[in-house]
């Protein structure tokens, strides 16, 4: 019985994580400039990947795999913001940001 519950919970996590990843993909296609796309590419991803990993962990349920899943989650959380910031910063410095899409730009006066 607990195994069935875990299976179903895992399946729910997998499906919702996949839906978030789909939304992220659509956002990357639709958004107008680099910075908006970075939001779509890195952000629903965070929860999406965590949900997928939770789903995988609930289905596998072996200690060795759980350790690996936990490692993937930790490194994903630690590295995604760094990558996003590097891309966003270089996009801004290279002038690949469309100022007409911005309401306020407090970095411009610095």
């Amino acid at each position, binding site marked *: 019985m607990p195994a069935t519950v875990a299976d179903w919970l895992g399946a729910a996590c997998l499906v919702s994580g996949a839906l978030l990843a789909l939304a992220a993909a659509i956002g990357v296609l639709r958004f107008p400039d680099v910075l908006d796309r970075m*939001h779509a590419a890195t952000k629903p991803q965070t929860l999406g990947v965590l949900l997928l990993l939770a789903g995988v962990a609930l289905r596998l349920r072996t200690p060795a795999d759980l350790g690996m899943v936990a490692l993937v989650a930790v490194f994903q959380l630690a590295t995604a913001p760094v990558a*996003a910031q590097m891309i966003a910063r270089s996009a801004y410095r290279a002038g690949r940001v469309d100022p007409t899409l911005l309401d*306020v*730009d407090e*970095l411009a006066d610095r």
Partner: protein
Amino acid sequence: MTGGSGRTSGRPAGRLRGRAATWRDQGVAFGWLVLIWNLLWGQFTWGNLLGGVLVGAVVLVFFPLPPVTFGGRLRPRALLVLVARFVVELVVASVRVARIAVQPGFQPRSAIIAVPLRVRTDLNLALTAELVSLVPGTLILEVDREAGVLYLHVLDVRRPQDLADNRARVLEIERRIVRAVGSAAEVRRLDSEPDEREKKP
């Protein structure tokens, strides 16, 4: 302004504590490296433990970490609050950004805002930037380490109030982090300084 008035007495003792803190930080890093090595192999055996010790030592000797000293204290309850609120924000904001992404014909407006933090240690700056960056809707563009200012790109701004809300949210995350891992002096500074810097952006 970052007055270290409490530590001026007894400089040798302070240096001794500094060295002890460095050794403690190295020890903590070493422990994590050994644990990660074992997790990567998928099981804890004596061989993996030995390999982890060797690899951890090599990593620490050849790739020394910049000295980010942890000067605070871990407060379990505040840490729990931090994690719980973070998960809630993560879920709410993920759904919001996902909806913006799939809403047909909707082009979001954005803004870049500067948020000066109140506690300017490297650790606080890095942790706040990490957490703010993980929550959807805000993206760190630039970090001014000397002044302790984060520059954020905010997705989907509709009215000026949204900007103030985002500033307040970042400062709230900073407050939760300091409550969870900051030193007593930092907590006091946050409590005694009632958000005066955020009023003059």
